[in-house]
């Protein structure tokens, strides 16, 4: 059976090589977006046969005058309510190009749909009702276009018939919107007076707007530029996945900017590992010769085995993006619950995903009023500037340097809740990539967990001196080991005797002490062991750092034994010395211990036996996926 159709004649003109420009139409609700779109389709001869008749019939059946917007508001619900509730994409042609029109709803509640549409646009048409003038939503949309990076904005002043085609009224609105857009750094390419319902100024000049000398809407669309080529920028290939379907190990992703070719020396950020591109793989023909540019989804193989993860960025050495755990962003917020300082978020920067904390809200603005609101939180549909700290380092560029990699979205409960632009990056210590090639373990994590019957973890015991951390840690260590696991004790004092012997007890030294403990523990956890850390770690921020470093492996246990019990125990005699003034910076007496707010487990050793407390820890490790359930059964069977 042969169903392959062989091309019978040379390529026909099918429109696929004409430049395509994507344009979003935005503006206040009822200012006439859908009407303009309907009219544009009609004027450019883009309506399918029978559509006009169908709409007339629909209108007549409802006893309503003919309405162009019915064309787009195809959904029953929309026709009933008279509003457009989602983005619709419609295609038509002007003389020189194919236009994809994105009709964005103006209703404030549906701002997320407007953003969904506008983020894909090369240009925008901002529509204003001549009678009503510039409204909140007009300003809000203008601001969002600016934020989304849509630079080409054509303004149309609609419903000129309702103001008797007054040139004065047109000028007043032109001045107002120009001032607003200019204030945002957006210069309207053109401002056109029209009546979408009657067709004045859409595709034709009419006598009623005889005083207007500029282009029609169709002419203005014809003059918008297609998207700017990104190939001139430095190479950015965010890694979507590593595929190993056969003997090839293919790093797959889309080239967001720049270009690459086999033989290029590349650097994998944020780790800064260096390699060379061996091949560019494809299908059905592979490998691919020739340079691959921005926009291509590619797969590359490297000349050496490196540990690469989804979200890493492949760049050329010398023009790599910055590596950071801290950045400032200008964002728009779509979620019902306002974004506040201290909020925990999930940030996505391309395929890279990182947990993050809002360190500061530096600005919060209602773009409808363009007035600053209180700096405490960014409300729904408002914009603002925030400072965020990330749990894992990411490689990124400020938006002004690379529009593709310099943007991010924020997820709340698995749903996109906001997004924005990276304003600045506080570069990490490894700003310049170095040729460090960490040696990967010979074993895979699953090989280890199959033997130990647990995943790697950092079990962090925090609490006052003499609260019972070390005792508990040792009991836990013994128990896990008996069950065939691989626990390792990292006692704060013990490490201070060696690895951290250069550190004192200043706040900075204490932070560094905790950071090193966390790094060592995390290394062990990554290699399948359960690192049990027993350290006072009094500062909440330092423990937050440890959690960021260990990420999902982190389990915090607050050993919350009352202070007076601790002092009474005083096994090392520290309290006694401190009371006598012989021990400066001793936590416990000075009240500088910051109680954990969200520990995975809280244990008061004054009311429990060591065995009962160890039981509780073991249970927590089971329910949080560190210990496999069968551990107990295995032990019973031995």
């Amino acid at each position, binding site marked *: *059976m042969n*169903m392959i159709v062989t091309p019978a004649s040379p390529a026909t003109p*099918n429109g696929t090589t004409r430049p395509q420009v994507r344009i979003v139409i935005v503006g206040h609700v009822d200012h006439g977006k859908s009407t303009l779109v309907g009219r544009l389709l009609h004027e450019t001869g883009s309506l399918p046969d029978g559509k006009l008749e169908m709409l007339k019939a629909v209108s007549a059946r409802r006893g309503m005058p003919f309405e162009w917007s019915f064309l787009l508001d195809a959904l*029953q619900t929309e026709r009933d309510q008279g509003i457009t509730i989602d983005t619709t*994409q419609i295609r038509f042609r002007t003389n020189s190009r194919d236009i994809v029109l994105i009709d964005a709803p103006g209703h404030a509640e549906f701002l997320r749909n407007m953003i969904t549409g506008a983020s894909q646009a090369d240009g925008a048409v901002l529509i204003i009702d001549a009678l009503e003038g510039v409204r909140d939503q007009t300003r809000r949309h203008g601001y969002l276009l600016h934020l989304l990076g849509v630079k080409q904005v054509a303004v149309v002043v609609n419903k000129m018939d309702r103001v008797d085609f007054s040139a004065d009224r047109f000028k007043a609105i032109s001045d107002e919107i120009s001032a607003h857009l200019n204030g945002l750094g957006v210069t309207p390419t053109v401002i056109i007076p029209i009546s979408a319902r009657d067709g004045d100024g859409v595709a034709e000049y009419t006598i009623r707007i005889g005083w207007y000398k500029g282009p029609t809407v169709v002419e203005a669309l014809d003059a918008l530029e297609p998207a700017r080529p990104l190939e001139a920028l430095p190479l950015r290939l965010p890694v979507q996945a590593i595929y190993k379907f056969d003997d090839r190990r293919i790093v797959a992703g889309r080239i967001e900017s720049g270009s690459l070719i086999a033989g290029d020396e590349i650097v994998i950020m944020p780790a800064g590992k260096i390699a060379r591109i061996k091949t560019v793989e494809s299908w059905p023909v592979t490998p691919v010769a020739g340079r691959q540019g921005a926009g291509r989804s590619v797969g590359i193989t490297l000349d050496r085995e490196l540990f690469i993860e989804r979200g890493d960025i492949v760049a050329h050495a010398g023009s790599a993006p910055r590596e950071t755990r801290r950045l400032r962003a200008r964002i728009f917020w779509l979620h019902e619950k306002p974004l506040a300082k201290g909020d925990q978020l999930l940030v996505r920067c391309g395929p890279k995903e990182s947990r993050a904390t809002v360190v500061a809200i530096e600005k919060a603005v209602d773009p409808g009023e363009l007035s600053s609101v209180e700096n405490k939180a960014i409300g729904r549909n408002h914009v603002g500037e925030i400072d965020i700290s990330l749990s894992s380092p990411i490689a990124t560029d400020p938006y002004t340097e690379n529009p593709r990699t310099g943007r991010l979205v924020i997820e709340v409960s698995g749903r996109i809740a906001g997004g924005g632009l990276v304003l600045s990056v506080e570069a990490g210590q490894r700003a310049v990539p170095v040729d460090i090639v960490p040696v990967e373990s010979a074993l895979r994590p699953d090989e280890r967990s199959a033997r130990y019957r647990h995943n790697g973890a950092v079990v962090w015991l925090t609490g006052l001196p003499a609260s019972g951390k070390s005792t508990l840690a040792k009991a836990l260590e013994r128990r896990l080991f008996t069950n065939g696991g691989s626990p390792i004790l990292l006692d704060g004092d013990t490490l201070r005797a060696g690895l951290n012997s250069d550190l004192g007890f200043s706040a900075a030294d204490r932070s560094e002490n905790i950071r090193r403990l966390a790094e060592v523990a995390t290394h062990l956890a990554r290699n399948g062991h359960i690192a049990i850390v027993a350290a006072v770690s009094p500062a909440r921020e330092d423990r937050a750092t440890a959690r960021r470093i260990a990420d999902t492996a982190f389990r915090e246990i607050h050993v919350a034994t009352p202070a007076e019990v601790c002092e009474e125990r005083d096994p090392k005699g520290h309290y006694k010395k401190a009371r006598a003034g012989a021990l400066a910076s001793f936590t416990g007496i000075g009240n500088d211990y910051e109680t954990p707010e969200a520990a995975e487990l809280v244990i008061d050793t004054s009311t429990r036996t060591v065995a009962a407390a160890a039981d509780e820890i073991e249970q927590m490790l089971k329910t949080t996926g560190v210990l496999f359930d069968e551990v107990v059964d295995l032990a019973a069977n031995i």
Partner: protein
Amino acid sequence: MDHLDQLEAQSIYIFREAFGRLKKIALLWSLGKDSNVMIWLARKAFFGRLPFPALHVDTGKKFPEMYRFRDHYGKEWDLDLRVEPCPPIDAVDPTLPPAARSAARKTEGLKMALAKYGFDGLIAGIRRDEEATRAKERVFSPRGLEGNWDVRDQPPEFWDHFNASPPQGAHLRIHPILHWTEADIWAYTKRENIPIIPLYLSQNGKRYRSLGDQDITNPVNSTASNIDEILAELEQTKVPERAGRALDHETEDAFERLRVAGYL
């Protein structure tokens, strides 16, 4: 990069996101021109293979040519093909008009397959230019527990950032060719030499523009007997693509009702 290259690269990106971010996905293969292009794109994305099942929700009423095509290319393309049946017509909402009711069997068959395998993502070959309600779709489109689509509460989706966390027990529809047009599909089919079912080509002055079940799909008048002629015809025609699909035209909102209930 020409227009088709751009479409291809974008679809590959979507495929890789779906495969990377969801746990258990399948591709819905309706055997038509769009889903054949889709399989082709997936093989480009995954370097020659389809690393998840191809699901054919079978009404049992397709054209013989379609079944032959399925059996042949299912093997030749080395697909993990799962053919899943649909319930009888009595099991379907009797208030729907006849053709829509017939088509709704597929929605039910789809739900059964979802329950059977526990997929959290279904890749479907719908396009925005086909039909007005499809124009409003997201690339990653969440479905409710009943497979229903809540058009009034779709998550924001911008800059190719997709929402990939379906609620427990629910699933996502992934639409990797949402941004393609009918003409794009044909131009690409020709460029890549992707096999097609001969029913799309004119015989005795008629051809199918869109293939569905035998009893509710009609051919349109056409003399186009190869892809170039199809492309030339699309350049001229103002007949909508789904003109031959009876279910779209029974009542003003028949298709929308189907889609909200979980139809493709």
